């Protein structure tokens, strides 16, 4: 299943923590023209570098679908960033 939600949280030494929830499917729909252009560019790049196009897109899709569950938290002093994909 492709990722549905990206959560980003930034804790700063001063001020309130910023927390952003990004629903990925609506964002992907809004950015669809750009994504199609990027996919075409990727296909051309595959042809230029003699990489098989269909398996390359297959692996790309598998990578995308394997993203849910990824979580990265970085804390440096009093600043912290958390990114989570569900």
């Amino acid at each position, binding site marked *: 299943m492709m990722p549905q939600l990206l959560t980003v949280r930034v804790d700063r030494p001063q001020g309130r923590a910023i927390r952003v929830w990004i629903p990925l499917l609506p964002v992907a729909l809004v950015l669809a023209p750009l994504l199609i252009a990027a996919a075409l560019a990727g296909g051309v790049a595959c042809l230029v*570098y*003699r*990489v*098989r196009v269909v*398996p*390359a897109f297959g*692996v790309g899709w*598998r*990578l995308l*679908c*394997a*993203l*849910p*569950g*990824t*979580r*990265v*938290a*970085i*804390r*440096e*002093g009093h600043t912290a960033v958390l990114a989570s994909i569900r």
Partner: protein
Amino acid sequence: MNEQRKDILGMLAEGKITPEEAEQLITALERDQPPAAASPGARPKGKAKYLRLEVDTNENGEPGRVNARVPLQLLRAGVRLAALIPPQALAKANAELSRSGVPFDLAQLKPEQLEALVDQLDEVTLEVDQPDAKVRIYCE
């Protein structure tokens, strides 16, 4: 019902053995079989779902921490990228490796072997302790 038990019951039905002999054989069979339940401390193989990376640093008295959780499925998908590397790129990489004193043929590395490697990762725990940093990589 396993095959050996079926065989014993078959021999009993054909009259080759007596009911007492069949009972003795089945008892011996049950005694020889391993217990179904695993020991409580043992983790079922292949159960790990995530690769965890924890880095604790202390630079100039300022503590830092990186805590990452990556699905093993992502690694499995990633190793399939190895199958997409064009032969000319592999040849260049092999030449560079040889020049660096690492005579390793990347063309011999198959995605199936890499997937098998990822499958065995759940048994691996890697810990590096330095005075100002601590790294721990494991699966959960």
